[in-house]
């Protein structure tokens, strides 16, 4: 990102302020909790007791990252009004939740689940299914985390304007995250999310106001400028773009809701009422989050026209510079806003890391390496492996491989392949383990193969969606061929709502 005119000592002070607040929240959320580090449920799921406010903000701050601003505004800048899809694909996630969350909440309480794998293990009782799913989920989470670490670097370095060297700043912020997460687990993650979420919401509003101020509060002029200078960005899109739009709604609707950290927020809810109410509010949030960021990007087209693809990535920094020079009030607001971006990235990274650790603790270590270990030890192993994973990912972020770079872009396409096992398995008792395994594998190979060979989409349809379709066919046809045993039927009565 370009040098910010407001970067420097003021930015450093604001970042230190945010860091101290986060550390304090982490410290207080872990203090006095005797059983916190002795129990997987307490550490990873806040004892399954998240109330309305914390659950809502942890959903919000996790779903919307710093990337929602620094990545989505440029996307709107480049694609124009078509980027309205960013509102819907964030909403459709909650339609995706409706497919399974109501039943999954009840089952998870009844059978005391910690990770999504607990469900797959109970439902299919197959090492092959569990291990493949663990692999896909860890892969997705790892790459997601990598993306956040890279983003923290960009945001921090532009805010401090080189006052703090780039790598020192990143390490410092990641240390802050590791410390509060180590101290308080999910509780610390959720409580810091309240602060990070509020800051993000306010930041977006203020940035939008600043952007409107710069164009004289006249959005009509902006649109007329775009219609004349770059009509393609204001026009109804062509058919392939439309198909792509629809495809992304399906991919995100099925995929985003089954991110392991998203599922674990269902497990962590205090009650059905809490879960419902936070979801119901969340369904409105895209309009005032990605929707407003979309408007910022559109205003950017008129404000700073003619940026190429790489140049457009700097859009938020460029606009922030203009807004900061309006007057002293906007200057300080922009510093707080960039701090908010860093906070928002952290709030996503911490949740992803926690989920990653829980899969290591509960699934890899707890199911296959040392099932007899105490919960304290399992929690400890997850924490330590989490720290090691962050160090490795950081190393990767600073030394990106020259070839096979696409491997590290793959996340959603692979992760979404767990969807049939996870969701259809709840309702369709005939669904059998081996077809689930082969379907998941086929879907992952197709989706991964298409991306790696540079054919991410076919006629506008994403590789992940095509893989998912094949996955479904294998699962359904295969399961119909496998007879149901009485033993299995008896076991699966546990997931009926009426026992």
């Amino acid at each position: 990102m370009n040098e910010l005119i407001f970067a420097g000592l003021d930015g450093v002070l604001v970042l230190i302020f945010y860091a101290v607040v986060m550390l304090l929240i982490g410290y207080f959320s872990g203090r006095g909790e005797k059983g916190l580090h002795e129990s997987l449920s307490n550490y990873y799921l806040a004892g399954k007791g998240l109330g309305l406010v914390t659950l809502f903000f942890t959903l919000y701050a996790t779903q919307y990252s710093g990337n929602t601003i620094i990545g989505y505004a440029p996307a709107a800048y480049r694609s124009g009004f078509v980027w309205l899809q960013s509102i819907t694909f964030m909403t459709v996630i909650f339609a995706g939740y409706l497919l399974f969350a109501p039943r999954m909440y009840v089952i998870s309480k009844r059978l005391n689940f910690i990770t999504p794998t607990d469900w797959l293990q109970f439902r299919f009782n197959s090492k092959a299914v569990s291990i493949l799913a663990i692999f896909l989920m860890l892969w997705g989470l790892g790459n997601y985390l990598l993306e956040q670490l890279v983003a923290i670097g960009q945001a921090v370095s532009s805010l401090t304007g080189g006052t703090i060297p780039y790598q020192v700043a990143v390490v410092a912020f990641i240390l802050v995250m590791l410390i509060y997460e180590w101290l308080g687990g999910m509780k610390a993650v959720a409580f810091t999310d309240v602060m990070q979420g509020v800051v993000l919401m306010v930041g977006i509003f203020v940035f939008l106001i600043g952007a409107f101020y710069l164009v004289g509060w006249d959005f009509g002029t902006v649109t007329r400028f775009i219609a004349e200078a770059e009509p393609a960005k204001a026009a109804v899109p062509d058919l392939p773009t439309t198909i792509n739009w629809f495809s992304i709604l399906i991919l995100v609707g099925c995929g985003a809701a089954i991110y392991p950290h998203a599922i674990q927020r269902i497990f962590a809810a205090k009650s059905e009422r809490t879960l419902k109410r936070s979801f119901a509010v969340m369904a409105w949030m895209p309009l005032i989050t990605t929707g407003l960021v979309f408007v910022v990007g559109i205003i950017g087209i008129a404000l700073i026209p003619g940026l190429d693809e790489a140049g457009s990535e700097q859009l938020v920094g460029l606009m922030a510079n203009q807004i900061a020079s309006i007057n002293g009030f906007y200057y300080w607001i922009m510093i707080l806003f960039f701090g908010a971006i860093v906070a928002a990235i952290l709030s996503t990274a911490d949740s992803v890391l926690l989920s990653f650790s829980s899969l290591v603790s509960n699934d890899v270590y707890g199911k296959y390496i040392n099932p007899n270990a105490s919960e304290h030890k399992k929690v400890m192993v997850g924490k330590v492996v989490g720290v090691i994973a962050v160090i490795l990912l950081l190393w990767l972020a600073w030394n990106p491989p020259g070839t096979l770079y696409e491997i590290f872009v793959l996340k959603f396409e692979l992760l979404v392949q767990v969807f049939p096992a996870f969701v259809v398995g709840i309702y369709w008792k005939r669904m059998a383990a081996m077809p689930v395994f082969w379907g998941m594998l086929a879907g992952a190979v197709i989706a991964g193969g298409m991306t790696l060979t540079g054919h991410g989409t076919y006629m506008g349809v994403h590789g992940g969606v095509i893989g998912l379709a094949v996955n479904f066919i294998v699962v359904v046809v295969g399961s119909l061929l496998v007879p149901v045993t009485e033993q299995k039927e008896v076991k699966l009565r546990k997931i009926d709502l009426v026992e």
Partner: protein
Amino acid sequence: MDNKSIKEPIQKKWIWIILFFIILGNVPWYFQSGSIAPLVWGVPYWTLFIVAFAILLSAFTSWVIMTQWNIVEDEEEDEEKERKRGIEHE
């Protein structure tokens, strides 16, 4: 749990049919590709339809979550009330 009081969205087909049509309406396949004018309230006419469907999607999803989903809520809330009463008596 008795079966009659349970409300689960997956069991209600009409929810998913309506959702499908809202999502279909949110994708601008039904407009003339390449058209911009007329501008209404300062934006290309077609974007108003897209935004309207986006609002409709939020409203419908939110409404379904609040009214068509009730599995263990009553039970849990009763338990919570009992628990609170117990604490008061101690």
